[in-house]
């Protein structure tokens, strides 16, 4: 079975090295990987120069490993719209295929407006960090209800809500009716039942396999898909065909 990992990170300091990540991913039969950038390399609030540094790293990696690595443009909505707009266009021209947002600004904030309009205009998917945390360390961090709010504002933008296990049952219900929102399977330990629940309430067509490697192990993260009590056809959608359709169309 072909596998696309739609959520990995490669560090600026190359530790672990990209070669070791690619090597181990191949060992786990993962064909293609989407790198989202070293998004926490400079903390929650990177400067524009730091954003460029992270994106240049991603661009360099996808050029070194064409056909194996794909990348997203990392942004912080706290930066001026002019910078964001230019950075999106620069990254798209360089081959990046989507936008990654982390936790510098809550996604209900108006500062996301121009960014989302640009994403819409360029037909770029947006992958947004999300988590229902018992205690938020960073008050700007978005939860699934925030993602749902954003998705309702921009129904023509494909949004991938990160971290299925971490958003839980409530998170699945938050986005259930918003057909432009997908969820990736990354986040936390591989708690049982999460995949089955998401398949039941969202459908397998809206779930993408993501590992969150290098923080996580491809093996354990694949185990939650292979070990789930769902059909082989649904596993294939989650591991490959959904990401192929949404992120890597021919």
């Amino acid at each position, binding site marked *: 079975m072909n596998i696309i990992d739609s959520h990995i990170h490669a560090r600026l300091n190359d530790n672990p090295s990209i070669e070791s*990540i690619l090597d181990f991913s191949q060992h786990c039969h993962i064909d293609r990987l989407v790198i989202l950038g070293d998004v926490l390399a400079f903390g929650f609030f990177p400067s524009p120069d730091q954003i460029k540094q992270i994106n240049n790293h991603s661009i360099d990696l996808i050029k070194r490993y064409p056909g194996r690595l794909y990348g997203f443009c990392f942004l912080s909505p706290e930066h001026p719209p002019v910078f964001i707009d230019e950075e999106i266009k620069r990254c798209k021209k360089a081959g990046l295929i989507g936008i990654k947002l982390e936790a510098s600004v809550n996604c209900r904030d108006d500062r996301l407006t121009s960014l989302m309009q640009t994403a819409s205009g360029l037909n770029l998917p947006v992958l947004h960090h999300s988590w229902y945390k018992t205690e938020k360390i960073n008050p700007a961090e978005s939860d699934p209800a925030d993602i749902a709010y954003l998705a309702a504002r921009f129904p023509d933008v494909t949004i991938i809500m990160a971290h299925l296990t971490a958003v*839980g049952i409530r998170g699945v219900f938050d986005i259930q009716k918003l057909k432009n929102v997908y969820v990736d399977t990354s986040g936390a330990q*591989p*708690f049982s*039942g999460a995949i089955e629940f998401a398949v039941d309430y969202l459908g397998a067509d809206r779930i993408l396999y993501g590992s969150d490697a290098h923080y996580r192990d*491809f*093996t354990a993260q694949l*185990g*939650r898909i292979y*070990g789930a009590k769902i059909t082989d056809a649904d596993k294939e959608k989650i591991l490959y065909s959904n990401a192929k359709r949404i992120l890597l169309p021919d």
Partner: protein
Amino acid sequence: MKIVDVNVSIGNWPFQRFPYYDLQALSTALDAEGVSLAVVTAVEAILNSDPCYNQNLHKQCQNDRKFVFLPVVDPSMPGWEERLSAFLPGLRGVKIFPNYHTFALGSSQIRDLILFLKALTLPLIIQMRVDDERNQHPHMRVAGVAVEDITQLANLYPDQVIVCLNAYIQEVEQLLQNSENIYADISFCEHMDTLGTLNKTLAAERLLFGSHTPFLYTRSATMKLNLSRISKEMRQKIAWKNAEDIFRLEEL
């Protein structure tokens, strides 16, 4: 390859729906994942001090060679020694949840429990957490057991084997580096090629296969083991040999 899973539970947990709730279904599921033998604990004993949960599971395991019964003990609860003694002979260890049962690892109750275990040459199993602290119910927040507290206990009783379950990878590294009588399971450990990474700095002699089934997908642990880049010898030690030594399973 034979796999002994040292971290399996059965029962109800109010915060998660499990795929199976009886020992027969659990046995079938573990067979399908290649687990030959499982050290099993009653989930309800974490939150409910009624001894019936240990007693019922003990009774069920006596008729099933797939499972090794592991009682949960709260040493702050009067009469624990008498209740534990009812499981002799055949007792293979004792599991504690210090942070759920709110006793300190430096307490006199722990000293008494360790004396009990030492007399029988049995391991003390410390479950450091049940779930991810970031996702706990807001009114049911329980922190993980501190590495420092376990290290202190282990160094106070260097002849006592202590097995730590559900430690994060950084915690495993600290625990195993700090004390030679501490062992750890792999259920909560994660990094790129988890076991290959751990094997660079730690001896696999003190790692054990544990899946934290049914809380986690068993397959995540078996894939972690089977796809890791470690030698066959190391893999066997983690998969079953270390567990066999610690729990004296060859006597079964």
